Structure formats: structure tokens, C-alpha cells
């Protein structure tokens, strides 16, 4: 099953690259001109998101560099210990929604130190793979169309992150614990 999905992923982009222009050509679309017209928007969209991304990444970067994360981890540790969550993965849990590169660095470090097949290694792998960088996704997607008021999106995103984290701990203990 997994090999099949991997094989499919390998072929999907070349297949799209062949099918999309061919179908358009059959439908008498001016393929070259249409592609260029769409591609033109790529540049403007990318430039448009810079202010949004800069605002968010500056705040997250300052927060990370200050060491405030360690204080938060220290404060949350007694609670998570009660739930049977190993303290080693707490920084990763808190970093996951904030910074993609930061979380990847932390999970790589955990896998390296404890070994990929250790309990911590498996838990860190599951946590890293089961969630996305909520703040980045919201900033990027909303920023690209000029949305500044997110309404309840941040709550939904963070609730999903907490759920994925607790579900990771539960399932890794259940399967490998």
C-alpha cells in the first residue's frame, strides 16, 4: 500500500504536466498564452505575502530567541507529567504550530539523541508528521488575499494541534509503549 502511494506520488506531477496542457489544447485553448497569464500571478502573489509573513516571523523569531519557550515548558511540565507525557517532547509540542524549521530541528535532535526506534524517537516522528505549522499556514493563506481578520481560525488550528499532540502520545504508548 505504502509503496503504491509512493509510486503514485512519483508519477503524479509528470502526468499532470502532460494531461493538463493536452486537454486544454484539445479544448482549443491557446495553451502558451494561458499558461503565461496564470504564471504572471505567481510573482505578484509571492510578493504580496511578504508583509504578512514578515510580521509573523519577526514575532515568532523574537519569542524563540528570548528563551521564553523554556519558561513555558517548565511551567507546563508538572501538568504533562501527570498525563504520562515525557518532558523531552514538550518543547517540540510547543514549537510545532509556531515554526516549521524550529520543529523540524527539535524532532531531528530528539531522533538523533534517543534513536529513531526508541519511544521518544517514535513519538517525535509521529508528532512531527501529524501536524502542520498552524501560524505559517494561516499567515500565508490569509495574507495572499489580504485577509487581516482571521475570526475563529486560530482557535480551530490550535485545537487541532493540541488534539494531534495528545493523539500522538496516546497511540504511540498504545502501539509501542
Amino acid at each position, binding site marked *: 500500500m*505504502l509503496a503504491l502511494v509512493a509510486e503514485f506520488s512519483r508519477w503524479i*506531477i509528470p502526468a499532470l504536466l502532460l494531461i493538463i496542457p493536452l486537454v486544454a489544447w484539445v479544448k482549443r485553448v491557446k495553451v502558451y498564452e494561458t499558461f503565461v497569464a496564470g504564471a504572471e500571478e505567481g510573482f505578484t502573489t509571492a510578493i504580496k505575502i511578504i508583509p504578512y509573513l514578515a510580521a509573523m516571523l519577526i514575532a515568532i523569531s523574537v519569542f524563540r530567541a528570548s528563551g521564553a519557550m523554556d519558561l513555558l515548558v517548565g511551567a507546563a511540565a508538572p501538568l504533562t507529567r501527570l498525563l504520562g507525557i515525557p518532558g523531552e517532547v514538550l518543547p517540540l509540542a510547543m514549537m510545532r504550530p509556531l515554526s516549521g524549521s524550529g520543529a523540524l530541528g527539535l524532532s531531528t535532535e530528539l531522533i538523533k539523541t534517543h534513536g529513531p*526506534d526508541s519511544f521518544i524517537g517514535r513519538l517525535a516522528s509521529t508528532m512531527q508528521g501529524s501536524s502542520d505549522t498552524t501560524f505559517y499556514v494561516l499567515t*500565508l493563506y490569509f495574507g495572499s488575499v489580504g485577509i487581516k*481578520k*482571521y*475570526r475563529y481560525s486560530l482557535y480551530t488550528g490550535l485545537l487541532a494541534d493540541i488534539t*494531534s499532540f495528545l*493523539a500522538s502520545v496516546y497511540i504511540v504508548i498504545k502501539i509501542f509503549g
Partner: protein
Amino acid sequence: MVNLVWLGLIVVGVVVAAFTGNIEGVTKAAFEGAELAVQVAFKLIAVLTFWLGMMKLAEAGGLIKLLAALFRPFLRFLFPSIPKDHPAMGAIVMNLSANVLGLGNAATPMGLIAMQEMQKLNRGKPDTASDAMCTFLALNTSCLTLIPTTILAIRIKFGSQDPTEIVGTTIFATACGMVVAVFADRLLRVWYRRRGL
């Protein structure tokens, strides 16, 4: 909410840094953050140019509409506010499939196209997220994936005996996150509407 979170991150960051004697770190970090934003945007130019061009072709060729029609029942349930066969539906399907298959650099451009299409349908203020956008991002932040490619590569690098053993646990955890996100989105939508927000 975003204003408070943003301010909170900065204020807590600066104050903690002042107490721990790491105040130079703040200056450096602030500029690094801005630089990272520009780097990310520049990297996106390439994938966005490619995929937005392809998507325009797919739309002109009628493929996006076809895709939207195929997934109609599922999409009608999640996005009742988007008219059937609207291009937004096709872009949403493309984005979600790219996410599931772990094609990160295709997922983002398709997601941004979906946002543009949803913005055209946004009947509220143009700077305020619509219901459909909130649902779409709830799905995206919980990111359902079949193969977590990056983490598999790291596990192989550090000599795992069975790198793929975490695929099952990952799918379980991400599915839990997604289910909660979809339900929370529904509840919050109703709640916000009642309060007129």
C-alpha cells in the same frame, strides 16, 4: 485575537530576554525573522509561477470543473457556501489531494488559488475571513498526510530498523486532529454567526 497573539509573542519575548540577559539576541532575531519572510516568499515565486500557470490551463481546459463535480457530495457537506462547480471547489480538491500525497510544494499554490477563488465569493468585508476560508484552513492546518516524507527521510538517516513503522500512528494522530478541526469549525461558525461576528 491575532493582534493579541502577535503582541504577546513580541512583548513576552523582549521582557524575558531582558531578564535573562539575552537582549542582543532579540535584535538579531527580529531581523532574521524579516529575512526569513523574504526568503520564503522568493522560494515561493518559482513554485507559484509554475503551478498558477498550470492551474490556469487546467481551468481553461475544464479539468478543475470536472474535479469539483467528482467530489461534489463531500465538498457540499464541508463548504455549503460555495456554489457547486465553482472553480474554488476544484482548487480545494487539488490542494487536499496534494496534501494527502505529501506533495508539499504543489499543495501551497493550489491552496492559494482556492483562497483567491473563495475571496471572490466573500460577501463580508474583504479583509475578514469567510466561513469557507475558515473551514479550508481548518483542514489545511491539520494536514492529513499518507506519507510523512520528511520525517521518513530523517528516520532513515539515523539508522531506523523500520522507518515506516510510524506511518500508522501518524495517520491516526493527524486524522484525530482533522476530525476535531472540522467539528470545532462547525461549532464556532454557528457561535460566531449568532453573535454577529
